[in-house]
């Protein structure tokens, strides 16, 4: 195993009776990258993370984190990782600062507590008790707590679940900052846009199995739909004009739109020139990029967020 490997998972299985929560998965996470485990609720994301951080025992298979075996060398792993569990909770009546100091003490580390508070933008809340914080602020504190031991890998399990869009973007910024500091981030999420916004590589997990794993652009290129150009309220004759220059197009009678399926052979400027020459009218032009949502739909036949409600 190379030194650039942070996590190595091989044939990992977790069963609960007849239910197979994680079904023979294998993957590698490189040092310094943000790796996103994307899948609906109940796909096996949290179970996988919990096995990697020592909270659950695998039924079979194995894994190593920073070269340490997840069963035999759990204590070594604990010293070197930071974990934000799903729905982070801590001592209710301790303040933000006291909670960070508590966990720093538990790790026997001496972090710059004020620096951590600043990093997660909780300076004006540092004397506030945990129970009085909003969901977003609690998650931020959870991230600060996960960093008290200056970990090499940070595991973030659904870090923005249940947060409003503003709080979610705040957490994204924090995760980006961790990446900039050279931390390896293992992120689980069921938000497609979160994986798209943050991850270097994405593993798509469904019913306990990894159905695809690659850099996100490569996943979209391989498994997503082609990019599309949409002519809103367009003249139907546009379909023939487009077909003449070698592209596929179809007319959506309901919306009155002409949809053009792009490829690399024809530039958008050539399409516009052809439409102009043919005097085709339309009210608006939209470029539709393929997304991880399309990749997931294509690979599983399901939409993200329509899975079960629990892991």
């Amino acid at each position: 195993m190379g030194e650039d490997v942070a996590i190595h998972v091989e044939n990992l299985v977790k069963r609960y009776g007849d239910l197979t929560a994680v079904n023979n998965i294998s993957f590698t996470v490189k040092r310094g990258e943000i790796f996103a485990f994307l899948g609906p609720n109940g796909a096996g994301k949290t179970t996988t993370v919990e096995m990697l951080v020592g909270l659950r025992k695998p039924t079979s298979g194995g894994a190593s984190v920073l070269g340490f075996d997840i069963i035999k060398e759990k204590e070594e792993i604990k010293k070197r990782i930071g974990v934000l569990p799903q729905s982070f909770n801590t001592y209710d009546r301790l303040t933000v600062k006291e909670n960070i100091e508590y966990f720093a003490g538990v790790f026997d580390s001496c972090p710059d507590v004020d620096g951590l508070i600043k990093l997660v933008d909780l300076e004006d809340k540092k004397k506030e008790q945990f129970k009085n914080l909003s969901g977003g602020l609690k998650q931020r504190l959870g991230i600060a707590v996960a960093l008290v031991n200056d970990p090499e890998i940070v595991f973030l399990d659904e870090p923005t679940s249940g947060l409003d869009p503003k709080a979610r973007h705040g957490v994204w910024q924090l995760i980006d900052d961790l990446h900039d500091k050279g931390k390896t981030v293992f992120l689980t999420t069921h938000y497609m846009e979160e994986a798209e916004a943050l991850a270097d590589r994405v593993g798509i997990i469904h019913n306990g199995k990894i159905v695809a794993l690659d850099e996100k652009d490569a996943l979209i290129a391989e498994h997503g739909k082609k990019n599309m150009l949409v002519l809103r309220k367009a003249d139907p004759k546009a379909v023939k004009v487009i077909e003449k220059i070698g592209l596929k197009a179809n007319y959506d009678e309901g919306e009155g739109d002409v949809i053009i399926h792009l490829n690399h052979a024809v530039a958008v400027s050539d399409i516009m020139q052809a439409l102009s020459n043919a005097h085709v009218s339309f009210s608006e032009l939209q470029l539709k990029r393929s997304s991880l949502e399309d990749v997931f739909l294509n690979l599983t036949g399901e939409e993200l967020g329509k899975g079960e409600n629990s892991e």
Partner: protein
Amino acid sequence: MSHVLLDLKACLKTFVRNKSTIFWTLAFPCVLILIFGAIFSQSTIKTDLYLQNLDVVDGEATYWADTLINALNSTDAFNLKMVDVSLNATDYAIEKRLSSLIIIPQGFNDSANMALFTHGSSSANVTFVYDQSTTSASIVQSIVMGIVERMNFELSRGVQYLTIEDLTIAPKRFSFIDFFMPGVIGMTAMTTSIFTAVSTSARFKENGVFHKLATTPLKRYEWILSRTIFNILVSYLGMVVMLVIGVFVFNMKITVDAVSLVMVAMASLLFTGIGMVIARFVKDPEGADAAANVITFPMMFLSGTFFELSQMPEFLRAIATVLPLTYVSEGLRASMIFGQADQAIFNTILVSIMGIASIIAGSLITKWEDD
């Protein structure tokens, strides 16, 4: 140890900042003390003492047997109950689970007279049958021994009469509040420790704090040790508040010695361990309180906290012998009220052994990780 102190500090801060917890932790035993104290502070406790007099002539007790019986009666410490002369008294005591019984043997009067005339070269003996596991037996024993010793002393000086009022070794008379206070101190150690252990564990299990802690180098035993010390400190706090009420409101004369302090600490250890074991089988915080109640409530009433065990029906006394709070109450009474060092130490050792066993079981059974 630094992790233990760290967690203990967090615990204490949490406790101090939760005013309602402080109030209810201390209010319940204080209210009990005040109510029961106000009702029963004037009443004294009388212990049952069974007596079989075999020294009878023409249906009447002999002179010295009668003198001894009158002396016992005049202490006002006993409900003297006569046992039929046709019964084997020792078998009767075993069968009826009596805590104390005195047998005045046939010829006791002659022996006493002989002792009088021989100036102590012979002696007159009575047999004292007792159950050493009960505190009341020790008290009875000390009174009876005092009477008999005094009687021998008077006989050797040739004095023909005996008055109990002269007995300096007779223990002080106890009021109900004296009896009640150590019981409530033990009960508070139990409720504080069990409820704290069960509810904290259930809450931390449900809200994921245990999961978070499990990803850190903090060890389970460090966390449990910190919680145990916390429970000991809260039990001491409750003890201080109750003693202040006892002394200033009811004018109690109570002794707090090293044995009673060790007993409270060991009781907290014992009940924290029991709480941890219960918590393992509780699924949510709502169930935690119910489970703690199921354990603590019967123990409160069956362990001699409110009533002396000898006043309870036989089958309840049998149950009390397997309840750990019984030994806590007995030990605390022995050390704080009756001054029975041997009883206090015996019960403290017993509770310590149970405490160590329960905290080990609690540590082993508590899980932060999932299967």
